[in-house]
């Protein structure tokens, strides 16, 4: 199995875990909880579809789902910024990545602020966002330096972020 394939398969399995183990337990607020993970699942599905077909539509979807994932986390900006972003993203993937970076950065700042105010923010969520940020930055640099829209290094860093991201969900399951 190639490294890219392994990253995609592992990412899909990891991102599916919270959706498979939690819904029956967390009856209330299912939709909001579902939104938190579903974009990550869609991201990895697009990743694998792109890897196997090399069809440009899937790389476009990959970037859009990546952006939607961070956008959902920083949802106070959802309406107005998504409205602006979508028509452009249809033509330029780089823009979706820049928006991803923007949403992830603000979300990270928000989490750190909440953590400092002694709220119950998980350290794992913060670490995962740091890895996601590094992954996005690496991907941006790869695009600017060599027009590489599917960097193994960036995807591997993103996978580490995914691993940390699902830990809070597993903690809730363990306590149940």
């Amino acid at each position: 199995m190639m490294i890219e394939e392994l990253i995609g398969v592992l990412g899909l399995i990891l991102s599916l875990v919270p959706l498979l183990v939690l819904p029956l337990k967390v009856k209330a607020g299912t939709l909001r909880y579902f939104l938190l993970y579903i974009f990550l699942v869609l991201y990895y599905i697009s990743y694998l579809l792109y890897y196997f077909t090399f069809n440009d539509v899937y790389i476009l979807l990959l970037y859009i789902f990546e952006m939607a994932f961070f956008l959902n986390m920083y949802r106070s900006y959802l309406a107005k910024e998504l409205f602006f972003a979508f028509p452009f993203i249809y033509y330029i993937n780089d823009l979706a990545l820049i928006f991803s970076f923007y949403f992830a950065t603000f979300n990270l700042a928000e989490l750190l602020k909440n953590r400092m105010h002694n709220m119950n923010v998980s350290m794992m969520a913060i670490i995962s966002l740091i890895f996601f940020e590094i992954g996005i930055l690496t991907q941006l640099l790869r695009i600017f330096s060599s027009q590489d829209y599917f960097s193994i290094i960036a995807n591997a860093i993103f996978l580490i972020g995914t691993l940390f991201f699902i830990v809070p969900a597993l903690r809730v399951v363990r306590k149940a």
Partner: protein
Amino acid sequence: MRKNRSESRIIFELLAIIEREECTSSMIIRRANIPYSKFKEIEENLLERELILKETNGDKTFYKITDHGRDLLKGWRKFKELMEMYGFEP
């Protein structure tokens, strides 16, 4: 400035109040800090979904949580804990 509570948060706060002890409507309104009209709206919804029961004792009406309501509240607490870990306010 204090943020407004979401509708679902008010509902679960109300359920939590009733779970702690049997309450009259005025006790619930005072503890949940909601207007009477809002209470009536939520009460109707909760009774319809069989999450709470209404019992009359003399001239007083008490509210009790059902097993289904308790289950839902348990699920909500887990959801709340999960959302807070990601920095969300449910």
